[in-house]
C-alpha cells in the first residue's frame, strides 16, 4: 500500500515537471488542419484499484488485494474532426485474493484480463480527452488450491476514460489517464490511474 502511494506521488511529480518545460502549441488531440490525418499510439502504465460490486463468499474469509499494476496500449486514428476511432489492449488484474477453507488451508485466486476494445475519443479541450469503448476481455483465472488450475473465458466488456495530455514536442505528449474497465462475464471492474506516453507516429 505504501509503495503504491509513493508510486502515484512520483507519477504526479514527474508529470508536473515535464509540464513545466513543455510548450503549448505542440501536440494536441484536436484537429489541426483540414484533411490532415494521423495515427497516434498511447502507451500507459500505472496502478489499478479493484472497485467491482459484489465479492467473494464470506465463508472464505477473503483477503482481497485492491491494488495491482495496469497497462494499456492504444492506437487511435485522428482524422480532421472531433471524433476519433481506434483500438486498445493491455493488461489488468481484477479480483485478486487469498482465502481460507474450512480447515484453514489457503487458496490464492487471481482473475486477470487482456481487453481488446474498439474505442471512440473526443478532445473536449486542447489537453483534455474522453474515451469510451467496448469489445471483449480475455479473462483468465489462476487458482492455487489443492493443486494449480488455469482457466480462461471470453467476456464482453467496456471502458471509459478521461485523460489530460501535455505536449512535449510536435508529435509527443505525456499524459495522465483515469480509466474504468469493466468485464460483463465476471462483473469485474477496476479503476486505474496511468501515466501515458502519446506519440503521433504517422501523419498524412
Amino acid at each position: 500500500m505504501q509503495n503504491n502511494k509513493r508510486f502515484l506521488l512520483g507519477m504526479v511529480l514527474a508529470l508536473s515537471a515535464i509540464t513545466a518545460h513543455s510548450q503549448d502549441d505542440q501536440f494536441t488531440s484536436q484537429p489541426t488542419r483540414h484533411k490532415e490525418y494521423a495515427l497516434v499510439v498511447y502507451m500507459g502504465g500505472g496502478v489499478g484499484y479493484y472497485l467491482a460490486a459484489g465479492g467473494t463468499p464470506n465463508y472464505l474469509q477473503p483477503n482481497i488485494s485492491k491494488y495491482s499494476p495496469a497497462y494499456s496500449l492504444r492506437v487511435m486514428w485522428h482524422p480532421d474532426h472531433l471524433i476519433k476511432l481506434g483500438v486498445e489492449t493491455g493488461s489488468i488484474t481484477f479480483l485478486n485474493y487469498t482465502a481460507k477453507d474450512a480447515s484453514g488451508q489457503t487458496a490464492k485466486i487471481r482473475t486477470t484480463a487482456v481487453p481488446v476494445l474498439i474505442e471512440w475519443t473526443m478532445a473536449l479541450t486542447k489537453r483534455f480527452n474522453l474515451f469510451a469503448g467496448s469489445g471483449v476481455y480475455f479473462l483468465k483465472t489462476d487458482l492455487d488450491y489443492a493443486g494449480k488450475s488455469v482457466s480462461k473465458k471470453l467476456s464482453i466488456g467496456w471502458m471509459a476514460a478521461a485523460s489530460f495530455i501535455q505536449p512535449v514536442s510536435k508529435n509527443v505528449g505525456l499524459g495522465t489517464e483515469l480509466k474504468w474497465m469493466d468485464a460483463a462475464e465476471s462483473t469485474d471492474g477496476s479503476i486505474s490511474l496511468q501515466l501515458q506516453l502519446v506519440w503521433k507516429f504517422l501523419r498524412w
Partner: protein
Amino acid sequence: MKYFFLTAVVAVFFSSCKRDFEPPVPVNDWSLFLSAPATSLPSFTRNKIEGIYTVRDGSILFGNQAAMKWSYTKTGADTVFQLSLFSPLDAIYIILEGRRLNNDILLNGYWRRNVNVETGKVRLTITAANGATALLNNVTADSIILSGVYGNTDEIPEVALSLKYLRPLRNNTGFEILAHRGGGRNADLLPASENSLEMIRLAAGFGATGVEIDVHQTRDGELILYHDATLNERLIVKNGMVGPIENYSYAQLDALVQLKRGGKIPTLRQALQTILFQTPLRFVWLDTKLTGSLENLRALQKEFIQIANANGRQLQIFIGVPTKEVLNQFTQLPAYRNIPSLSELDVPTTESINANIWAPTWTQGLQTEEVNRMQAQGRSVITWTLDGPDRIDKFLNEGSFNGILSNQPSAVAYYFYAKQ
C-alpha cells in the same frame, strides 16, 4: 456534441446496474401451529386429505379448483410431510405442514406464484365439525372443508381462503411429472439453487415424481451436478473463478464455490443418495453434458439401480442422450442397448440404441403418429421443457405422452390430477 457524449457515458454507467431478485419464503410463525400441544398427523389422516378441492373463498388468486397432495423429505430419522396445493392459475402452489391440535387439524405454510415473486403466508384449519373428527379417527368424512386465511409477503394473513373436498385425485401409476434442473431453474426464483441437493428435496413438494439433473465431470473425473459449461454468476456466487468447469478439480469446486441460491455443487453420488433416501421421487433423467467417456456415469447408474432394488425402492435412472457427441460415447459402452437410456434424438436413433424413453422437445408439437409408434414398441415418450398452464393443459388433453418435463411441475400436477 461534448455534452451529448458525456451524457451517454454517464447513462451507460448507471444503466449497467442490474437488480437481483431474491427468492422469498415467508417466515413460519403461526404460534398456534408451533405450540407444544400440536402433534404430527397420522398417515391415514394425511392420505384422506389428498384430493381435488373446490376453492370457495380465494378463487381470485387460486382459481376455482385445486389439487392437494402430500410429499415428504427425510433428514436422518426425521421425516417432514408436506401438503402441496396445485392451482390452475400462473403455476401457483401452496406448501403446508400439518399438525393436530385437540380435535382440529392445522395446516401452516406459504403460497407462491411461480411466474413472479408474489408470495405470502397460508393458515388453514379443518375443524372437528368440518371433517377433522372423521379424518383423525380413520373414518371417511362426509365432507372436508379447509378454512383459514392467506396474506402477502410476511404480513399477517387476513384474506379468507376456504376449500371444500370434491373428489379423489386421478390415480398416477405411470405418468411422470419431471422437474427441470432438480426442481426448477435459478430464474424461477425458488428457495434453493438449481441442480442442488436442497432443490432436489423440494421437487416432490412442487408436484414432481422425478427430476432431470445436469451432469458434468470435473478435471479429476468426479461427476457433478451443474448446468452451464462454465462457472458464471448466473449459477455461482462471484469468486474470481471463470471458464469451463472441467478445468477445476472437485476439491477446488467444493471448497471455493457457493451456488447462487445457496449450497455447494453436489456430486452425482450425493444427488442420487438424496433422491433415493430423502425423497419419494421415482424417476431420474441424467442430462448428460459430459464431453468424454460415459463409463463413470454408467457405473454410478448401475450402482444406484442396484441399491434402490436392494432397498425395495422404486427408482428408475436413465442416461440422457441429447447430442450426437454423447451418442458416440454412449455406443462405446458395453451392451449399450440394454442400458436404461433416454434419447432426445430422432426416432430412428432412439430405436437404434433401444432407448427406453424418447424425449422430443415440445416445440415439435404433439407428434401423435411418432408417439404411438414409440409406445407400440414399449417405449415411453416424455416431452420437454413444457411451461405455461395453457400449453400444459393442451399437451395433457390432446397428446398421449407418458410424462412432461417442466419448470412448473406444480402446473403439470394440477392438470394431471384434476383431469377426470
